[in-house]
């Protein structure tokens, strides 16, 4: 029955279509500029997924349009199709092959996740405080140097952000870093980033937090360690008392990195 179908030709067209779609889509930098060590890993994972998805999409399109071209009823034809109820081998194939594909995607994602959250002993810890509709930051040393609306971090050093929301949930996202994490009232959440390009970026709140949500932004500056130290030393503001309270009570660190074993 299926010997009547040009299976080889259909597969060739599918592969050709996959190549064309991939050739168009992979070179495009969908996620924008990358500026952290996580960015190329996530972008690469995305590209692998684009190729796999292009294959699945092409397969569906070829199957659909071949059927529409070949098996379209002639006008006035009131007869029925051939009474085929199924094909066990084919059904097993389209159960098992997608299972393998998604398990591969899952395993690869797991590895990337493990990589990008790998803690580094020499990391710098920066505390983040979010409230409607402003960001502020505290740096260790010199009894918590403090800045409002502007975050500075050194380049090429892992930064662990310990994040605290003071009123409702906010979310910390720097698109160029590809890293996002909610700030949740009552607990401390952690984001791990290693910025690897100097420059000025924008910190965006991505969790709806009220009427000022769209404008809840902060400036992010990635600079050389020397400049960073100089900038921190020049900070004059002190960490406000309520924020100090939160830092003292910081006990839950949720979530820890994967290989820290939970807890």
């Amino acid at each position, binding site marked *: 029955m299926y010997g009547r179908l040009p299976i080889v030709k259909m597969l060739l067209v599918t592969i050709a279509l996959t190549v064309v779609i991939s050739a168009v889509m992979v070179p495009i930098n969908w996620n924008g500029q990358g500026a952290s060590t996580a960015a190329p890993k996530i972008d690469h994972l995305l590209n692998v997924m684009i190729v796999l998805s292009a294959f699945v*999409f092409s397969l569906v399109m070829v199957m*659909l349009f071949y059927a529409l071209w070949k098996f*379209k009823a002639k006008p006035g034809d009131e007869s*029925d199709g051939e009474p085929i109820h199924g*094909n066990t081998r084919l059904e097993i194939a389209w159960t098992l092959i997608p299972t393998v594909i998604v398990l591969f995607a899952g395993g690869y994602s797991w590895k990337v*996740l493990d990589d990008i959250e790998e803690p580094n002993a020499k990391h710098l810890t920066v505390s983040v405080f979010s409230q409607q509709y402003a960001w502020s930051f505290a740096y260790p040393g010199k009894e918590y140097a403090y800045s409002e609306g502007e975050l500075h971090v050194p380049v090429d050093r892992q930064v662990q952000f310990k994040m605290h929301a003071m009123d409702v949930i906010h979310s910390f996202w720097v698109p160029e870093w590809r890293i996002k994490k909610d700030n949740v009232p009552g607990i401390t959440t952690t984001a791990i980033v290693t910025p690897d390009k100097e420059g000025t970026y924008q910190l965006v709140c991505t969790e*709806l937090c009220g009427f000022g*949500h*769209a404008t809840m932004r902060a400036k992010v500056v990635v600079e050389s360690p020397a400049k960073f130290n100089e900038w921190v030393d020049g900070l004059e503001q002190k960490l406000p008392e309520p924020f100090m309270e939160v830092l003292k009570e910081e006990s839950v660190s949720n979530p820890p*990195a994967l290989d820290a074993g939970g807890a």
Partner: protein
Amino acid sequence: MVDAIKRPGWWRGLIGAIAFGAFGFGLVIALRAISDLPLYQTEQTGYPHVIVPAITAPLGFLAGFGCFDYWLRWAAGLPTIPDDHSQHGAKSWKDYFKFNTDHKVIGIQYVVTTFFFFFIGGLMAMLIRAELAQPGTQIVEASTYNSLFSTHAVLMIFVFVIPVFAGLANYVLPLMIGAPDMAFPRLNALSFWMLPIAGVLFVGSFLAPGGAFDAGWTGYAPLSTGAPLGQSFFNLGVQFAGASSIATALNFLVTIITMRAPGMTFWRMPLLVWANLSTSLLVVAATPFIAGVQFMVLFDRALHTNFFDFAGGGDVISYQHIFWFYSHPAVYIMMLPGFGIISEVISTHARKPIFGYRLMALALIGIVVLSYSVWAHHMFVAGMFSWLRVPMMITTLLIAVPTGIKIFSWLGTLYFGKIHTYSTSMLFALAFIVTFTIGGISGVMLGMVPIDIHVSDTYFIVAHIHFVLFGGSVFTIFAGVYHWFPKMTGRMYDEKLGRVHFWGTLVGTWGTFVPMHWVGMDGMPRRVADYAAQFGDWNLLISAFAFLLGAVQLVFLYNMVVSWRFGPKADANPWRANSIEWQVSSPPPIFNFDEIPRVVGGPYEYGIPGARHAIMAGEGAEVPAGEKSMVGTPP
């Protein structure tokens, strides 16, 4: 007049609403007075003198309208009024505005009511796109904008997509399984009448001080626990929509399990019936979770409980766990009935048996089981226990497998068939395969934690949900409405206008939602009234396509209204389909069947000479050769 007040109906309903509302209001004021409190508490999360009547008045309306009459008389030991079938069937349009226990009338009530809210929700989408056409604030201010997208989503989800499927199935399903009605017709009527109450509460929240609820349809605490009064309307509306949904699901379960015609074994049920069986299994177990969590929010707001108040020891993230434990299964509640519709439409118009029927049914059950184990993929960046992310990622990716089985089996159904594309329903079914594949692909990407970390809460999510809910669910709804329009109204719709609607919707959907993926990945967060200027051009394009998408729905509305009134009379079986609903007249007789049909074969036996699905009354007892007779088997 006095007579009108005594009889169940709108007058008595109005009086019930006023009386019960006044009772609720009086109770609050009296209790506050004897407690020496100020009579009115108007902190933004308070307003007990509004919240309590908002619970009691709808109950009063339902009681007055006649939803409980039979049960109350029975419970009180009074003689029940024998059903004279005055609550059955519809002779004029006025009968659709009455308490009616006929599943066919209720089905139409559902579909029309839900499309009413579809157009209101759609208008809100137009306002949203008008605001977003350019960066900056032009049309609505930020807090109104937040209310608009929140109510848009809530109307579309709770009073359009979920109940419109219940409505279509209400009409079609009893006919399909050869049943004279649903198992519990009075419960069915009550389920319907709770729905407009939910819709009125959602829309009515715009009148509340502080405006309509604006914490998104997700209503995350503590934004929702501290929000103005409108949020309480959301908390309460969900209770009515949820109760309606649960009661309907129970009704479907009992109907499907106990009321199938003799001979209709589980493996002879049409896939639409399988789909509604699966959906109902999700609804009965999952919906209580959202009802519960919205009560918890309401209690935090009105009674100062500490479920989600972190300062009082509450746990903010637990809101999200409970919410998504319902709301992820809910996306399958919004999709599985559509899968059923697509199976019916494709098999009928390809003149072919469904390819791999049993695996198709098992895939539905597989989705039901898996869908309870994926909820936390909505929370990969929420700060939950980090290890939970990996197992939730694996189950999320695995759910693509049964979904893929369905896509490939529909494609397999087309092969060696005789594909007819004259019907708009088939066009929507074929387009659904394409758009839903894209929505599925972006879903798999979102399931992968590292990609999700980047695109979570961006326009990529907005693109994905609209591809699966508009390109997915709504396409299947259109396919279903066009497919059963002749059966439900007894009239044919205009295929030319149907094609205009189809192509406009297809182009509008792709033009609107494809670029949203791109701006999202490039850095545009969701739920913002204003955005960075770099996304301006894309958003203008998106808005232009969105207006096309909105405008072309008016063609659909015109086609439906005019065809219902003036369309050519429909034959019993215009699509030459096999399932039982097409073997009775269009519209079907008031009690569906003079005699319960006998099912003698599968529902999709196209192309097999002499094969029959069911033998109708008056056809004698002839059983096709080769078929084992199931005639006379007790149900």
